């Protein structure tokens, strides 16, 4: 699948604005002044390709089974994502029907080329690697994934061997490994040092910054792109913070921070080692907020330190 985050995206967004009468009310609200600025992109060092810094996750949010009503609702979330320029969509066989629901949405929208498809292998059986990838590809309705990752480092030795072979044959675009919840960082570090990875995925947010110590510097040194998962700590962080606190005025002044989604996501993607963050949502309005966080001014290193201190003080 070809992904081009450049001019084609801009044309699509402008075209969406011109075709406003055919769009839903959420989309009509979407392209405000700042959202029409170009989305910030991160570079996949190994291939030189660029990705919008805000992607989307699908854990829990897209696992709706065969429920037609909810499938259509999730399709609107993907529509908003695509209208903002699209980018990485991350999924896993562990996420139940999420891949099938994403396939449903992409087929309905005709938008398969607007996403950078990131999937995972999640089995300890080395003989299942190719079969599981083929099964997930069928669910997505794709022939080839842009990125295939080993989920939570499960059976990574055997899977990586297969994945690198598939990459050589151009059956997948990139290869990566994942972890989450701050687990197995020592093992992840060893894998990063020894394997020619294109991507790693790990948990990084304003309250979980362990990766700053060794993994993010190592990723920069090795030229490995980094996906930040759990940017809202599974939703608990943003739900807890936005119900009790206002966004600080200095953040509004300094980098046009309009809401806590802006605050939390801009903190993540302004780290120089982070390629993209993958927040998940079931709400179109939240998708707009997430995607807007990938545009406009970003916090400086000094401001990032202030953001940490501010959240710790709450």
């Amino acid at each position, binding site marked *: 699948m070809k992904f081009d985050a450049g001019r084609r995206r801009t044309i699509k967004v402008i075209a969406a604005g011109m075709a406003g009468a055919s769009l839903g009310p959420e989309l009509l609200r979407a392209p405000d002044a700042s959202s029409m600025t170009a989305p910030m992109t991160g570079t996949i060092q190994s291939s030189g390709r660029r990705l919008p810094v805000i992607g989307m996750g699908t854990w829990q949010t897209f696992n709706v089974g065969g429920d037609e009503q909810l499938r259509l609702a999730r399709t609107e979330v993907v529509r908003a994502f695509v209208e903002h320029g699209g980018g990485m969509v991350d999924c896993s066989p562990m996420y*139940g029907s999420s891949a099938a629901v994403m396939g449903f949405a992409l087929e309905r929208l005709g938008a398969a080329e607007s996403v950078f498809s990131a999937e995972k292998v*999640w089995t300890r059986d080395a003989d299942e690697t190719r079969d599981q990838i083929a099964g997930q590809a069928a669910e997505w309705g794709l022939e080839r994934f842009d990125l295939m990752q080993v989920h939570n480092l499960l059976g990574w030795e055997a899977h990586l061997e297969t994945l690198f072979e598939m990459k050589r044959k151009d059956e997948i675009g990139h290869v990566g490994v994942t972890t989450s919840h701050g687990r197995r960082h020592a093992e992840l570090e060893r894998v990063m040092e020894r394997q020619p990875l294109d991507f790693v995925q790990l948990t990084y947010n304003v309250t979980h910054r362990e990766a700053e110590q060794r993994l993010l510097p190592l990723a920069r040194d090795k030229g490995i792109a980094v996906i930040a998962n759990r940017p809202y700590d*599974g939703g608990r962080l943003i739900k807890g913070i936005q119900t009790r606190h206002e966004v600080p005025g200095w953040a509004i002044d300094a980098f046009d921070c309009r809401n806590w989604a802006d605050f939390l996501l801009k903190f993540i993607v302004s780290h120089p080692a982070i390629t993209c963050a993958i927040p998940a949502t079931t709400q179109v309005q939240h998708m707009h907020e997430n995607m807007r966080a990938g545009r406009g001014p970003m916090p400086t290193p000094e401001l990032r330190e202030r953001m940490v201190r501010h959240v710790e003080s709450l």
Partner: protein
Amino acid sequence: MTGSAAGFLEDSAGYSLVDFVPFSAEVYFRLIERVGETFWPLHALALLLGLGSTVLAWRVRPRLACALLAIPWAWTGITFLGQRYAELNWAGRWFAGAFGLQAAILLLLTAIGAGFDRTEGGALGRQPRVPYAAGLLLAMLGVVIYPIIGPLSGFGPFQAETFGIHPDPTAVATLGIALVALRGAALWLAAIVPLLWCMVTGLTLQVLDAAWAVIPPAAAAVALIFTAWKSVRSFAR
């Protein structure tokens, strides 16, 4: 066990409870609703089956009660867990298998004909009275009370969980009916799967912030206590 399932178990250390539930509350309660809509008006027949099983167990027809109970376990295992829930959770296939196993256990006990408690529970005679009373209360909780919990909590009429249609009331009522109808090893055998399911669904509902999350584990605790009580009293005699 598939590689994914084994991988999940191997990989589960360090997760919090919420990470074991791969769907949202909206999706789960929509599933309850869709199943309710799909099988309406089968609910009336299922309720009659539940009431009938309870009365038969109470009025010294435990073998027939046990045979009838196998039907809702097989039905919910296939239609709820196997055909729908398994779309959302890889473990759904295993849960469906467990429900099928429970149906097989109930039919096996019926076929063997051993382990039935033929005490006239209704007369509350010389046999331990409290386990019978607790069993009847659990059966009524599963069959009669459960369908009104959802609507009383603000959910729609098709989100009323019904014995024989949805797994939770089926498990709770079965614990009660088994407590009345069975004794000894047969009682324990018939209670294992419902007890485990009550714990699984209680934890799931807790993650989903359901107001009634405590009911299935509380019912399991009551059933466990009185199953043990009944066993000890039987052994003592």
